[in-house]
């Protein structure tokens, strides 16, 4: 059973807060919770190292999502 505590400051960093929210949605085996400024990830079948990579993936995905919003809207509008 893996458990990591990540310093992420969800209260002041909306990107981290969103990433954590979506992490819980997309990976149903995860337990995601905040303890103060630390994000706690728990999963029965994932190691600590894996949970670390999972967090980086979630952050990257959220960053990519925001970076791409306007381009994507323009693209879909162009296709309409």
């Amino acid at each position, binding site marked *: 059973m893996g458990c990591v505590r990540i310093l992420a400051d969800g209260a002041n960093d909306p990107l981290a807060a969103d990433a954590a929210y979506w992490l819980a949605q*997309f990976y149903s085996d995860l337990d995601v919770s905040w303890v103060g400024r630390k994000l706690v990830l728990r999963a029965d079948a994932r190691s600590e190292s894996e949970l670390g990579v999972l967090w980086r993936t979630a952050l990257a995905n959220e960053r990519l999502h925001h970076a791409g919003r306007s381009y994507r809207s323009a693209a879909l509008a162009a*296709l309409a």
Partner: protein
Amino acid sequence: MTLFTPLRTRLMSPDRALFVNDGGGFFRAGPDFLDRLSSNALSGSDRRFLIERGHGVDDTDPLGETAFLYNVAERLTLSGPLDYLILVPTLRCNLSCSYCQVSRAALDQKGYDWSDATLEAVLGMIDGLPGPRIKIEFQGGEPTLRPDLIRAVIDRAKRFQERQFVICTNLQQLEPELLALLDEPEMFISTSLDGDFDTHRRNRTEDADTTRAFRRNLATVVERYGPHKVSALPTIDPERPPQPDALIDAYLEFGLESIFLRPINYQGFARKRHASSREQDLAWRAYHEAFVRRLIERNWNDRSVVLEESYFSICLRRIFQPGADRHVDLRNPNPLGHDYVVIDHDGQVYPTDEARMLSRSGVIDLAIGDVHTGWDTPARATLNAHASNLRDPACQRCAYQPYCGRDVIDDIARYGRIDLPRHETEFCRRHLSLFDLAFRLIYDEDECTRYSLARWLRLEGMPVSFGEHWA
């Protein structure tokens, strides 16, 4: 030189993430690449790779944006004219299957067949269809109880250049009038085969004689027309799924190689007798994966046969070959009541067969009109307001969005509402699981796996690999 990277990512294994671009192209990479991408520190060879594979659009590249737009457009449903009809000429049935979703009518009941006026309206509607092709599926009840109605419809549809007909039948009776219909070259047969003799009897036919009659008739039609004209589907009780080999063997006995694993849904009669058919998640998914892996083993051991789980094959083709299938339950956007409709025994029009069954079981009325007065109605417009996954905040972040779809009716059937967060719906969880499995297999270098994937994707050869890896 700005590089736009329309990518979404999902963890595949402890140190590998899957990246999918908006056009559906994908690759796998490790955490170092992830970090370079996130911190805007892409190397020259990173950028070159991304651009060459359509994962990145460089604003100075004249073709980049056009190709990107094309690839995205290729993933979107282009709903054409109405050319696919599901017709229910009668609700009466000569069986009483335990899980029946349509609340069937008994053989001698009156008022459950198309009236003359309804038949005329259906024929008139067929006359007015604009395109050169048509597909008509006959459902019920048991549609073969009214071969005259089927005949009237297919004769009227002879004018179309491209025609395809499907009769969904329990194959309990095969009289000459029905055989004449089945003999039509454009006619296909769809039936239910739940497994071996006992399983089928328990679920559907109740006694040994009826079961024998069905099996005899199934053997007859496969013999007469060849296995490619016949498809069969099992309905599986997720509480008691059959051993994969037992189910596969039951199909192979009749020369049938495609199996669409369909868990019981709790509509109609199914609700009364199978109360626990709601939450089948993890156990079902484990069964499904074991089933697919068993197919891979068996395909490798016997190359003369290509077994497939039909829905999984559709998911694979959704990944690699946009437009290859027109499976109306998995597409995005999923327009309802436009390119295909269901016309019930009473002339009511529904957007999908599931919608018809749901309405039949009294849960909610999803009719969008009727065959006499049409179906361009506010009801249809309401259903279509949420027919796409493009604006859903979860789907927007999901790596599988280009391959996935939207099934408003399924949400209504299970939850009575369509605004639940995606991950709380079975549709989303099921497809996350299916695509996760698909990508595990895509990156499985085992030759047996590659062999089955190549056959399920209908390839002539066998690719050396199905997915790229970027260091």
